[in-house]
C-alpha cells in the first residue's frame, strides 16, 4: 500500500475517500502518513491536505529556483482549465439548484442533468458553449454525447469519479476544494474582481 500511495501522489493525484478509498484510509493512519512524509521529505516534497481536510496531495516543501518552473507550468495549466471547470459546476448548480455540488462526495446523475438541460433552451446553449470551451463538441455531437465528453474530461482531470457506470452517477472528489482555494486566492488578489464586487454597492448608494 505504501508503494501505491507514493506513486499516486507522485503522479499528482488527489487522494480522498471518493477517488482512492484504500489509499485514503492508509493515509488517515498517523503512522502511515508519517512514513510517507519521511519518504517525500528526502526529495523536497511534503503531503498537504485540502482546505476542508478531505483529501491529500503532494506539494513542494520549499519555493526555490528549481521549483519555480514547475509551479509556473502548474499555474499555466490552471489558467487554461479553470474557467471551463467553473462554468461546468455553475451549469450543474443552475440546472439542479443544488449548491452542495461544491462539496466533496456529492453525486451528480448525468441522466437527470441532461433531462433538465433538455427542457431549457438557455441551459442547452450554455452546454453548447461549455462544450466548445472544453473542446468536446463537433458539428454532429448530440447534447448527451457532449455532456458525456465533458464528464469524461473532468474524470481525467480528477474532479469527478464515475461512481456508478450503469446509472452514470458521478461523485465530486476532494479536488473541488483545491478549485475553491484557487478561486478564493484569485478573489482576494485580483483587483478587477474587487471592482466588480463593489460596483453594485456603489450604484445602490447613488440611488439612495
Amino acid at each position, binding site marked *: 500500500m505504501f508503494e501505491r500511495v507514493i506513486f499516486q501522489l507522485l503522479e499528482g493525484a488527489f487522494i480522498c475517500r471518493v477517488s482512492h478509498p484504500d489509499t485514503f484510509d492508509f493515509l488517515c493512519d498517523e503512522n502511515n502518513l508519517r512514513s510517507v512524509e519521511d519518504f517525500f521529505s528526502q526529495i523536497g516534497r511534503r503531503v498537504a491536505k485540502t482546505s476542508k481536510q478531505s483529501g491529500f*496531495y503532494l506539494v513542494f516543501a520549499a519555493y526555490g529556483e528549481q521549483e519555480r518552473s514547475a509551479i509556473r507550468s502548474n499555474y499555466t495549466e490552471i489558467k487554461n482549465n479553470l474557467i471551463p471547470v*467553473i462554468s461546468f459546476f455553475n451549469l450543474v448548480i443552475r440546472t439542479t439548484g443544488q449548491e452542495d455540488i461544491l462539496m466533496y462526495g456529492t453525486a451528480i446523475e448525468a441522466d437527470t442533468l441532461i433531462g433538465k438541460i433538455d427542457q431549457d433552451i438557455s441551459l442547452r446553449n450554455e452546454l453548447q458553449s461549455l462544450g466548445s470551451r472544453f473542446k468536446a463538441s463537433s458539428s454532429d455531437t448530440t447534447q448527451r454525447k457532449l455532456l458525456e465528453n465533458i464528464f469524461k474530461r473532468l474524470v481525467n482531470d480528477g474532479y469527478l469519479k464515475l461512481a456508478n457506470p450503469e446509472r452514470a452517477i458521478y461523485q465530486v472528489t476532494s479536488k473541488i476544494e483545491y478549485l475553491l482555494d484557487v478561486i478564493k486566492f484569485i478573489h482576494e488578489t485580483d483587483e478587477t474582481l474587487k471592482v466588480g464586487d463593489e460596483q453594485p454597492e456603489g450604484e445602490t448608494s447613488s440611488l439612495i
Partner: protein
Amino acid sequence: MSKPLHDLLSNALNAIAAHRELIHAVYSKGRYIKNGSKTDRDAYVLHQNRILVSDGRDTYRLSSFMTKLFDEVTQIQRLFELLGDNAGAQINRISQLLDEYSSAFFAGRIEDADHVSAQFHDACADLSDTFSSGISKLLNQAETNFAVVSSIEAKSRQNAHYLRQAGRFSDALESLDRFGIEQQLGAGYCDFEPLAISYRSLISERKAEWHTEIARLLHFFETYLYRLRAIAPDVKRFRQFANFLQQNSGYELPDLEETHHHPLWMMRDAGIRPIAYSDLRDGTTHEYLREIASQLPSPAEITVRERVPGRIERSVNKPTETLKLQPHHVALSRFAKDASLSLTPLSALSWKRQHFPDIGVPDEIWLLLVIHSKNSHRAEFSKLQYHRIERRGVSRISRNLFVRDVMVHGS
C-alpha cells in the same frame, strides 16, 4: 344511542376505499374547494368520517393523521418537521399509566387494572412508533442531504433543525432510563407482568438499536452542519466568480507568478510519470519478460524520407514495383510459344504434363485456360489455331460435350 365501534371503523374504511381518488387528489393538491359538482357530496362524507377537515366555508384539507400516514408511506420530506417533540410527553404518559395500574391493582380494581394495562400497551406502541418512524425520517433526511431544499443556507437551517430533533430523541431516550420504568416493572411489589411484556417487546428490546441510530444521526448532522457552514463562504465566492465570468467572457486569470505569498495550492506538485526498466542481468525475470515480449505486436516500420527544402522529389527515389506473373500465366505463355513453333498440332494436356506438371492447376482448369486464351486478344494467342477434341456424354440422350483435349498449332 352510539354506534358500535366496529360500525364506525367499517364506515371509515369504506369511505376511504370508496373515495380513494378524491383522497389522493386532496393529498397531492393540498386541498379541495367545493365547486357545486357531485364530488362535493363525497367530500362531505369524508368530512363526516374525519378524514377531511373543513378549512373555511368551501375548502377541505386532509386530516393531519392521514397526511402523516401518507408522508410515512411516500417518504415525503417536509420542512422543519416536528419528529421528537411528542416523545417526552409519551414517556410521561407511560409513567403515569404505570402508577395508575399499581393504584388500581392495590385497590383491587381488577377491571380498571386490565383497562390500564391495555392503555399501557398502546402507549408503549405509540412511543415505539414515534421513535421508529422519527428515526427513519431523520435517516432519510441524512441520506438525501436534505434534498427538499437546494441552497447551502437552507440546508444549514434544515440541518440545524433536524439536529435539534435528533437531540430530542436522545434526551427522550435518556429520560426513559431516568424514569426507571424497567426497574419499577421488575420491582416485584405488584404483578406488573402484563405491562412488562409490552414494555420489553416494544421498548426495552429496541432501545439499543435506537441509541445506535440516534448517535449515528447526531454525528452525521453535526459533521454535515460543520461542512455546510465551512463551505458556505466558498459557495458564495464561487457563484460570484461564476457570475462575473458569465458577464465578462474575455476575462483571463491574472499573472500571479511574481507574488511573494505562495499559498499551499500554488505549491502543488502537478506530478510526474515514473518510468522503471527491467534489469536484464537478473535471470529470474527472464521468463516474465519472454512472456511479455511474445505478446507484443510487431513494430510498424517507419521510413523517414528526408526532403530537400525547395525541391520536389520526382520518381528518382521511388521504389519500383515488379509485377510477378502467376505460374499458370507463365505456362500458358510458353505453351503458346511452343505451339506457334510446332509443325504439328500440340496437345495442351500432354504439353502441360511434360513441362509444368506441378503448377497446381488441375487438367480441366488448364484446358479451360487454354480455350479462353483464344479470346484474350493478346498477340501470342491471336495467331494460333485451336481444335477441341470432344466427346459426348454417356447417355444416349445426353447433349453434354466434354472437352478431352485441345490441339493447338500456329497458322
